[in-house]
């Protein structure tokens, strides 16, 4: 976690990379056990990333579009979880913050009449505000009464689900008990242009706010004095307090910003992937995917972006695998094992050390010696 010079920086990158590789190895083994060729899976994944099907020689850009569409919300929830984590908070509430963002987006989409250039940004801002507000609640309880954020955010996930469903069905009205009326065209992130260049994928303008979100995550945490104080609070609350930082205020602000990322995800899904507000039977898992993305991305902006794309391709390549006769659950198995391998960070570090032989071992000992004060 620490920014501790070149040595550990390379380790910080190597561990998730090794975890990803091991995840694919494990996935391949499972496919072998089911009696198929893992090459089919890699073909499907390459197809998911590039659009090229190496085995049949065909090209379909729709796969690229679908990859981006699948990645967008989990990059955002990854940013949400990662941002809170950098301040020392474990935000399990990305799911609920996302739902509130989606609800606010629905409200603005249905009730406001404005040209698209105003309507769309307004919807996105409303989503961020609602997500931020939903994040502020656990933040406030943590700062004021020291209630653990894990407990509050988990409960607020259920609350958000039911607030969303009640409001969608009773306030905005739904004929089929599932969705609201269609949004006006001015509210949508959809783009016939983007759809046509990707051969009819669901790709939409939502990727622009996602890219902006990744950049602001990086900028706030790494470049601003506010981000410095957030990181200080995350690493050592007592030292932050000693230095005169407002620890409580930082906790609330961090949760608001984290919630805004998830709220944005809700708005992007609602007006990009769909075109109506939705009542949900259960949580859709974006929040938990976000935890995995943040974990594999080591809570840093570039890492979260890449991890989001990786998990996005595992999702978007699912149907491709299935049509090649490989169960689509393989994607889930790989995702889960990557997370597991990242969690086995220490073990992987040892393996990497062993792979690099004796010289590296000496370095490990020296690091230990350094810590022992020698």
């Amino acid at each position, binding site marked *: 976690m*620490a920014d501790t010079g070149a040595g550990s920086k390379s380790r910080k990158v190597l561990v998730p990379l090794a975890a990803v590789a091991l995840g694919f190895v494990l996935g391949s083994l499972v496919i072998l056990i089911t009696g198929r060729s893992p090459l089919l899976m890699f073909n499907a994944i390459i197809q998911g990333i590039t659009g090229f099907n190496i085995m049949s020689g065909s090209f379909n850009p729709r796969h690229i579009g679908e990859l981006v569409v699948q990645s967008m919300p989990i990059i955002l929830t990854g940013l949400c979880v990662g941002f809170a984590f950098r301040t020392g908070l474990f935000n399990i509430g990305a799911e609920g913050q996302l739902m509130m963002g989606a609800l606010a987006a629905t409200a603005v989409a249905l009730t406001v009449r404005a040209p698209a250039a105003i309507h769309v940004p307004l919807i996105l801002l409303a989503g961020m505000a609602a997500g931020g507000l939903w994040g502020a609640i656990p933040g406030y309880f943590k700062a004021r009464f020291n209630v653990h954020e894990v407990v509050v955010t988990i409960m607020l996930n259920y609350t958000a689900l039911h607030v969303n469903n009640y409001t969608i069905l009773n306030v905005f009205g739904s004929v089929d008990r599932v969705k609201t009326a269609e949004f006006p065209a001015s509210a949508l992130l959809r783009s016939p242009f983007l759809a046509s260049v990707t051969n009819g994928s669901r790709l939409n303008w939502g990727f622009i706010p996602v890219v902006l979100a990744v950049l602001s995550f990086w900028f706030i945490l790494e470049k601003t*004095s506010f981000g410095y104080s957030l990181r200080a609070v995350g690493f*050592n609350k007592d030292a932050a307090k000693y230095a005169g930082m407002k620890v409580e205020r930082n906790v609330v602000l961090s949760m608001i910003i984290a919630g805004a990322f998830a709220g944005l995800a809700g708005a992007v899904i609602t007006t990009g992937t769909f075109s109506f507000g939705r009542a949900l039977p259960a949580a859709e898992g974006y929040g938990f995917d976000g935890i995995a993305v943040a974990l594999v991305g080591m809570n840093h902006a570039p890492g979260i972006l890449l991890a989001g794309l990786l998990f996005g391709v595992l999702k978007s390549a699912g149907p491709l695998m299935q049509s090649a006769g490989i169960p689509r659950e393989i994607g889930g198995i790989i995702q889960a094992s990557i997370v597991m391998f990242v969690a086995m960070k220490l073990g992987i570090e040892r393996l990497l050390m062993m792979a690099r032989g004796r010289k590296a071992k000496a370095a490990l000992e020296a690091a230990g010696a*350094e810590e022992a004060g020698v």
Partner: protein
Amino acid sequence: MAYIIEMLNITKDFPGIRANDDVTLQVEKGAIHALLGENGAGKSTLMSILFGLYQPESGRIKVRGQEVKVTDPNVANELGIGMVHQHFKLVHNFTVTENIILGLEPRKGLAVDIDSASKKVAELSKLYGLAVDPHAKIEDISVGMQQRVEILKMLYRDAEILIFDEPTAVLTPQEIRELIAIMRRLVEEGKTILLITHKLKEIKEVADRCTVLRRGKLIGTVEVKDASEAAMAEMMVGREVSFSVDKAAAKPGDTVLEIKELCVKNAKGLLGVKNLSIELRRGEILGLCGIDGNGQTELIQALTGLTKIESGSVLVRGEDVTNLPVRQRLDRGLGHIPEDRHRHGLVLDFRLDENMVLHTYGKPPFARYGILDFEAIRKNAERLIEEFDVRAGKGPATAARSMSGGNQQKAILAREIDRSPEAFIIAQPTRGLDVGAIEYIHKRIVAERDKGKAILLVSLELDEILDVSDRIAVIYGGEIVGVVDAKETDENELGLMMSGSLRKAV
């Protein structure tokens, strides 16, 4: 007499540094053998080799005359070598007995036979005069008691040779006296002790022989009774060390920090500081001494804004700061070197340069319009590293966590002195540091005084208080029980006041 342990011509390399260079250590059975050296001299490496944590590049180890290969700590345990680590390795919500038997639980059928284990623990405790309650939970007992649990752990495993790694660093003066008595008792019962330390006083008091290391090299082994403290210090540091602090008489000026009838609650909700009043004047060092836990921590935290003040007031340069938040107190000229440098003083996961701007990161030149200027932050660190001789392997980019205690403390000192506070609260500035670093830090504190700053020095080390202070205030039970001139008092008088049996007009 036969040697129980012989480490012959040990050499150990780490990348870029030779931690042990042809070191020979021979320990007699039944002796207390001290291993002396500054931080980084290679003491811990040598002991880690003996304990099987590292393998040496060359050299031989003999235990009881037999040549052995200590490949891992289990081998060391079988050879009867036990180590009391500086940082205890105990499970806090387990009882003493549960901690001691961890890993070799006696069984009765399927269940752990706790009763027979506690009995054995109680017997061992009695034999060596440890007075440990086998049923107490670790989190409920003092640090000194926890250390005894670590000792019991070794005895329970029938260790013959006990390695103590800086055992007094975490103890109060009384606990140190008790530990010394315990060590003597252990030797009487036929154990052998290897004592790693950089405190000369303790070596003089308990050790029979002393081996000195400097920068990985063996300097020599001396009989403690024939060697003076100054001679051993010179062996350790490589030059003459002055134990007393050179300083001119204080020229106190106007009052800078005024504490009036201060009351502060402690963690238990009781008054930890009661009606405390002191004045601190420009150009003087006021030492605050007392036994640990008599309100020092509460006082420091109340002055610096980390704890709420119940009643009374604090004035910095005549301005009331009683209810101001931390940042505003700092801006009004308060400086603070915290007693726990890891908990409060540093963000260990930050780089050194980031730590150097812990207070000032939001102000120019380090940030403009809320955007950090990393170039300015790095230059600031380079300047302070140079000026305060902070040794950090990768310069400003060094992880604070990887630095030695002495250099971490120098970094904090550099940061605080550089802010140039008018009223400077310095707590435990030299805890756990070696003589070289202590000498340097004392010199800088006196230099600040001579620049006209007002300094409140809070320390548990009586020697430090007596050496550095101009006036000494004694705190007992949260009250000031006396203020005396440092030149006109001695350890005895202070000791009596510290224990509450003497009061002197304030």
